[in-house]
């Protein structure tokens, strides 16, 4: 289990527990966190679960795959700490993870 904090673009915070093995996207969607659309349900096909990972956590969330990198390259407002939340798997080391959400997912 890991506690994840999602911070909406307007500053609203949502804190949810995520089970190990789920993705950060799944934790957001199953808890109805606004701002993560996740149209493809985690197939890395749509880039609508774009998040900004808090600097302190960037290393622990692991490397981006070529597919993720390539999808993100065409998302809006991409920063060096951008990730697709469907590609970050919850592990014990991620307890306390903070991610920020973009204004929109298009």
């Amino acid at each position: 289990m890991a506690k994840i904090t999602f911070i909406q673009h307007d500053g609203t915070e949502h804190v949810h527990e995520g089970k190990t093995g789920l993705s950060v996207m799944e934790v957001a969607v199953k808890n109805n966190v606004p701002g993560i659309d996740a149209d493809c349900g985690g197939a890395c096909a749509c880039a609508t679960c774009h998040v900004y990972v808090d600097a302190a956590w960037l290393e622990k969330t692991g490397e981006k795959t070529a597919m993720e990198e390539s999808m993100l390259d065409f998302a809006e407002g991409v920063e060096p700490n951008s990730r697709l939340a469907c590609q970050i798997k919850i592990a014990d080391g991620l307890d306390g993870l903070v991610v920020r959400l973009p204004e929109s997912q298009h």
Partner: protein
Amino acid sequence: MTSPDAHVVIVGAGHAGGTLAALLRQYGHAGPVTLVGEEPIPPYQRPPLSKAWLKGEADAETLALKPLEFYAENRIDFRPSVCGVRIDRDQKRLALSDGTDLAYDILVLATGARPIRLPIPGADLEGILELRTAADAEALKGALGPGRTMAVVGGGYIGLEAAASARALGADAVVLEREPRILARVAGEVLSTFFRTLHEGHGVQFLTGASVTGFRGEAGRVTGVELADGRVIDCDLALVGVGAVPNQELAQEAGLAVNRGVVVDLEARTSDPSIFAIGDVTLRPMPIYGRDFRMESVPNALEQAKQAACAITGRPAPAGETPWQWSDQYDIKLQIAGYNFDSDQTLVRGDPGSGRFAIFHLKGDQVQAVEAINSPPEFMMGRQLIGSRRPVDKQRLADPSISMKEVAAA
């Protein structure tokens, strides 16, 4: 805008209905929401049924759109195992299959589509399966395994995805397609050829131009598929995937406008202002193509759920979208943007032999659709070009050494 305490009744708890219920709460709708579903379980994702779920890589919890307790916690009255049977538009009541009825202020039809069943001899034998629901997938999973042979009737995406999963589970797969090529209704020739070669490389067999006329069985179980030319293809199970028809009867009997789907506008509203319809059941306008059509896809279900949620809660309508869909088979990710209407040219960017290429369908110098194989830049940029209707330089588009960003910037 609807009154904030209006009772919204959603008939159909698939991807569209489930998403709408959640969005209504996310957008602050305060009134009661009732979600009526024919299946015994809360809304779930169907795409993994033919892929990760079939291969045992996803469980029921992963499939579910939201956990069961979400509905009670969000004051969504989820009613499983019941369907709508009659709409009384004057009294604004929906009669249900359990004999009760519900008063509504807003009714949303999210009844989806159902697989076409072949009206041929032997079609009711055991072991003849379809793939639409979690229960269907459960039955298919139970029937597959090493040494089993699955005949797939219909070379569409569902059949091909199931064939790929069958191979991963050690089963044999034979695809029987009536047309001269697989994916004939939904893809161009280049893509058909690519997928056939891909599947053959994984040991899937194909018979095209194969018209299925019946099923053979022993002791009530299917043992083979009969073709019009007299051949019989032996199998232990048969998966029929030959398309779907909209579940529009409820709307039709209520006198709503239907035309190969429940007719809606860009707010997802039907010809009755108190009734919306979303997802696979609808025939909807698609302004970028200047026409109305019916789409069976998750992105469309989500988009129309947003349209209806915005209209019901008085939010501005979502920006016009470019339709898209995807498919995963083996290590291939196919992403499709747009629909291939009215195109006069097909342009292949990259080498199909490399397993990484994209097919652009153009009308003049505008992109109508793109089919991208393991090529996210082509998909993402192609999708933007389809939506913007901006002209492209076709020579540059055909040259993979020029990046998609540069192509689009020109």
